[in-house]
């Protein structure tokens, strides 16, 4: 019985295991905060690329699209080099803290949010452009209108970003260090337990992680449906 992953997952949850809850809380905290920061930066960036015409625009779009596939370990390595003692941002003393993990995940999620929101906003702009010009709107004024009107599509984009952040292990492992009680999150714990041969616990953690991601998605879906019904 103790070797059954579902049993382990269930007993982890039912026993309100304190260290498990800390891991879960940190996982959510890091990933949600990273997605939030990436959204605040990435949505306006995506909208700006959709709205403005500038010489290197095509290049920017290609780079953003390509960075959607940025390997987490490469992002982790870059942030590691930046934050390490000898690195340019070493003074911040962020390496092996949750702050470093958030930075690394922002680097991973930002291109996804920017590239996909660029596409969504551009589609919407095609539909709205003449009306906007007719209303005498500047490009800067169009941006909030477009972002708000693309809100349902952007919610899905946000979930894609959250999926990337919560599933990712390479970057948080490198810059966080998987320190118990400090920077250990679900994915790094799974890697550790697998390495130790504690497969039921690793699988149990995996089931908890999946359930969490499922809950976040279900919540977002319900919020989306409710507002869609109310405001079209």
């Amino acid at each position, binding site marked *: 019985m103790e070797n059954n992953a579902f049993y382990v997952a269930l007993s982890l949850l039912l026993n309100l295991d304190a260290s498990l809850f800390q891991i879960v809380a940190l996982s959510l905290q890091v990933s949600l905060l990273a997605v939030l920061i990436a959204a605040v930066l990435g949505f306006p960036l995506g909208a700006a690329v959709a709205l403005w015409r500038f010489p290197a625009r095509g290049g920017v779009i290609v780079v953003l699209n390509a960075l959607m596939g940025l390997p987490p370990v490469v992002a982790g390595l870059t942030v590691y080099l930046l934050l390490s003692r000898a690195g340019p941002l070493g003074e911040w003393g962020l390496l092996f803290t949750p702050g470093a993990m958030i930075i690394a995940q922002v680097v991973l999620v930002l291109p996804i949010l920017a590239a996909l929101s660029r596409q969504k906003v551009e589609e919407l702009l095609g*539909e*709205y452009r*003449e*009306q906007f*010009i*007719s*209303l*005498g*709107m500047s490009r800067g*004024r169009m941006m909030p*209108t477009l972002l*708000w*009107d693309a*809100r*349902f599509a952007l919610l899905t984009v946000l979930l894609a970003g959250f999926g990337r952040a919560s599933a990712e292990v390479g970057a948080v492992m490198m810059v966080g260090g998987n320190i118990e009680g400090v920077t250990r999150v679900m994915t790094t714990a799974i890697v550790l337990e697998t390495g130790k041969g504690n497969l039921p616990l690793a699988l149990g953690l995996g089931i908890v992680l999946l359930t969490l991601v499922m809950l976040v998605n279900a919540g977002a879906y319900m919020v989306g449906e409710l507002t869609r019904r*109310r*405001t*079209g």
Partner: protein
Amino acid sequence: MTSLNAPLLASSALFPPPALCFDGVAYSHENKVLLGPCSFTLEGTGPTLVMGPNGAGKSLLLRLAHGLILPTQGRVAWSGEIRPRQAMVFQQPVLLRRSAVANLIHALAVNNIPRRERSKLAFDALERFGLTTCANTPARVLSGGQQQRLALARAWVLSPQVLFLDEPTSALDPAAIKAVEAAVREFHQRGTRIVMTSHDIHQARRLAGDVLFLSGGKVREHTPAEAFFDAPVSREAQVFVAGELVE
């Protein structure tokens, strides 16, 4: 009403409506001339009906006049130095993914109407166009006729001196067409200069003050409505008024 309408009422009472001047205007795309070159001046009170068969360049002419696109040749100018306040209603109304009233409030907000005045102006316009009960309905789920009336209400709250309408009734049923035409008359009575495209000769007879007739990207004639319908000058317009098919 409010400060928004005050300058408009004053100006339309004291001054003639702004005249629109096309000076050798042409528009071409990929070396193909789609419109013009044409020169004419829209004066008087209108309403001006821009008529002609499909593909004659009616919508293009309207977009050039409104400034949505720039001519590849020639100049579009207004009498007086300032560009008049203007609005446009499209064949397919472009409505935001928000409630009906939020669409109007958005239009007021981008035109820098003070926040406290927006709601009242918006609800007044909804009432005028018979949309009060749909105020909080998502604009996208309104019927075609309601959507077009909402687009007209959005133009109304902006108090335009000139209103362009591009085939506003072509996708509507008779009852909705009637409502749109009534709205156009209301704009006209308020002193808004109407410039509207239509390929429906009956509609033109009901609304037109003067007719600008296009075919094949050229302005064939520009005459008062009675003259156009009774004795069109150009061969194309004669064929069009006679109800035959014009190329």
